[in-house]
C-alpha cells in the first residue's frame, strides 16, 4: 500500500466573492503520475498555488508529506507555467538551475562547489549539461522547459509539480518532456496540469478534473483496455471522454461525476 504524499480535505477557496474551488478532496500517493485537467478558470492553477503555499488556505486542509504546505517547500519541485518570460534576462543556464537550491547551508558569497556539482547533475538528468554556460534566452522553448525541470530537481524533491509544461513547445519537444517525466516518475511523484488530454493520459495513472469541484479517476488499470490509433499511440478522445464520463465508472465519485458531464 502506497502512502499519501498529498492529502487535501474539504478545500474551498474564493478570490474575494468569487468561489474558485469548492469542497475539493484529493489524495496523491507516492510515485503517482497525476494529471490535473479542466477548463480555463476552473481552478487548476489556484489548486497548485494552494499546494505550494503561495496562497493562504481559507477552508479545509492540505497536508504535503504530513505537513502544511509552507513547511514542506523543500520537498516539492515546481515548474511554473510560463517559462518564456524574461528571456532577455542576462542569466546563464547553470545560474537558473542554482536558484533551485534551498536557502539553508549556503556559503557567505556566491555558490559552493557542492551546489554547482548538484546543479550540473540536475542538468545532466534532463540532458542539458552541455548548455550550462549558455544564456537562457538562447535556448528553444523545449530546452528552456528542461532547464526549469532541472531547477526543480536541484533541491531533490519528492514531488514534482508542473503547470502546463508543454504549452509553448512543438509536438516533438512535448513528447520528449513527457518521456523525461516518465523516467523521473520512477523515483518521484509527478503532478502535471495540462490542457493536452490525449497526450497526458498516456503517461498519467491518475486524473483529477477540476472545475470548482474536483472529480478523481484512477486510470492505471484502464489504459490497456482502450486501443490506440496509428503510430502516435494517442488515445481516441471520444473513448477518453466516454471513459471519464461513464456512469458505470466504478472508481468515480458519482456526484462529482455528474458535474463533470454538465461542465462539458
Amino acid at each position, binding site marked *: 500500500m502506497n502512502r499519501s504524499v498529498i492529502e487535501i480535505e474539504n478545500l474551498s477557496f474564493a478570490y474575494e466573492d468569487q468561489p474558485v474551488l469548492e469542497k475539493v478532496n484529493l489524495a496523491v500517493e507516492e510515485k503517482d503520475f497525476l494529471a490535473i485537467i479542466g477548463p480555463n478558470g476552473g481552478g487548476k492553477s489556484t489548486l497548485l498555488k494552494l499546494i505550494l503555499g503561495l496562497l493562504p488556505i481559507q477552508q479545509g486542509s492540505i497536508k504535503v508529506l504530513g505537513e502544511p504546505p509552507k513547511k514542506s517547500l523543500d520537498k516539492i519541485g515546481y515548474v511554473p507555467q510560463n517559462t518564456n518570460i524574461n528571456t532577455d534576462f542576462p*542569466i546563464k543556464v547553470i545560474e537558473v538551475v542554482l*536558484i533551485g537550491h534551498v536557502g539553508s547551508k549556503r556559503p557567505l558569497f*556566491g555558490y559552493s562547489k557542492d551546489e554547482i556539482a548538484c546543479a550540473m547533475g540536475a542538468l545532466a538528468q534532463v540532458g542539458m549539461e552541455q548548455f550550462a554556460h549558455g544564456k537562457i534566452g538562447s535556448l528553444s522553448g523545449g530546452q528552456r522547459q528542461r532547464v526549469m525541470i532541472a*531547477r526543480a530537481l536541484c533541491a531533490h524533491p519528492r514531488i514534482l509539480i508542473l503547470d502546463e509544461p508543454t504549452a509553448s513547445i512543438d509536438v516533438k519537444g512535448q513528447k520528449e518532456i513527457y518521456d523525461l517525466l516518465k523516467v523521473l516518475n520512477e523515483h518521484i511523484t509527478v503532478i502535471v496540469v495540462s490542457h493536452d488530454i490525449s497526450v497526458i493520459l498516456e503517461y498519467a495513472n491518475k486524473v483529477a478534473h477540476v472545475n470548482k469541484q474536483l472529480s478523481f479517476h484512477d486510470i492505471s488499470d484502464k489504459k490497456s483496455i482502450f486501443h490506440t490509433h496509428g503510430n502516435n499511440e494517442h488515445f481516441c478522445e471520444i473513448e477518453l471522454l466516454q471513459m471519464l464520463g461513464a456512469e458505470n465508472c466504478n472508481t468515480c465519485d458519482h456526484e462529482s461525476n455528474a458535474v463533470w458531464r454538465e461542465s462539458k
Partner: protein
Amino acid sequence: MIEALQFSFIQHALIAGILVSLAAGIIGSLIVVNRMVFLAGGIAHTSYGGIGLAIFFGLPIFLGASLFAIGAALLIAALTLKKRHRMDTFIGLIWAVGMAIGVIFVDLTPGYNVDLMSYLFGSILAVSTQDLYFMSALLIVILFVVVFWYRDILAVSYDSEYAQLRGINVRFFYTLILILSALTVVIAIKVVGLILVIAMLTIPVYIAEKLSHSLFSMMFLSGLIATFFTLMGLWFSYTYNLTSGASIILVSAASLGIFLLLYRGK
C-alpha cells in the same frame, strides 16, 4: 582639457562622474531587469520634494533628498506589493505631488532664489568634497549589498514567484532594490539632473545587456560604459561650453545608436 585638471572643481566633477556612473551602472542593471524604470523615474522626480524641504528647513540637500526619496521608494514598494495593476497611476501621482511639494517649499523659503535648473539638469561642476564622501559611501554600500546578496537578488529579479517558493524574502529584496535605486537617483541628480537620470540608468544598461551572459557581467559592464559616457560627455561639455548633464545623455544616446547599428550588422 589637461590644464583644466588642475582646478579642484574639475577634479571633483571627474571623481563624482566616475562614482555616480559606477553606481548607476550597477543599480541601473537591477532597475532594468526588474522592469522598474518608470518607478525609478517616479522616485527621481519625487525627490525634488525632499530638495525643497531641505532648502526650507536649512538641512543638507543630500540628506533631505535622500530621506524623501527613500520615503517615496517605501511607499511605492508597499503599493506595488498590494495593488500591482494600478502602479502606473500611483507612480504618476507620487511623481507630480513630490515635485509640487518641492516647488512650494522653495517658494516659501525667504530670500532664497534657488536655481531649479541645476536640479533638473545637474550641476556637476558644483560638487563639494562632502558630496564626494556621500557618493563614495553609497557606492560602497551598493557593492556590499550586491556582492553579499547576489544570488538572492538574482533569484528575485529573474523569477520572483520561484524565489518566494525557495524561501527568499522577496518583499525585503524588492524594497532593498528600490531604496538603493532611490539613493542612486539622488546622487545622480548632481551629475545629470533628475530629468535626465533615467537615461543614465538605462542607456549603458541596455548596451551591456546585449553583451552580457550574466547579471554580474551586466552590472560590471554597465558601470564601465556609464563611466565612459560620463567622461566623454564632460569633455564635450567643457570643449564646446555646453550643459554637462545634457551632453552626457546625448553622448550616451548617440553611442547607443551607433552600437545598435553595428550590433544589428552581426
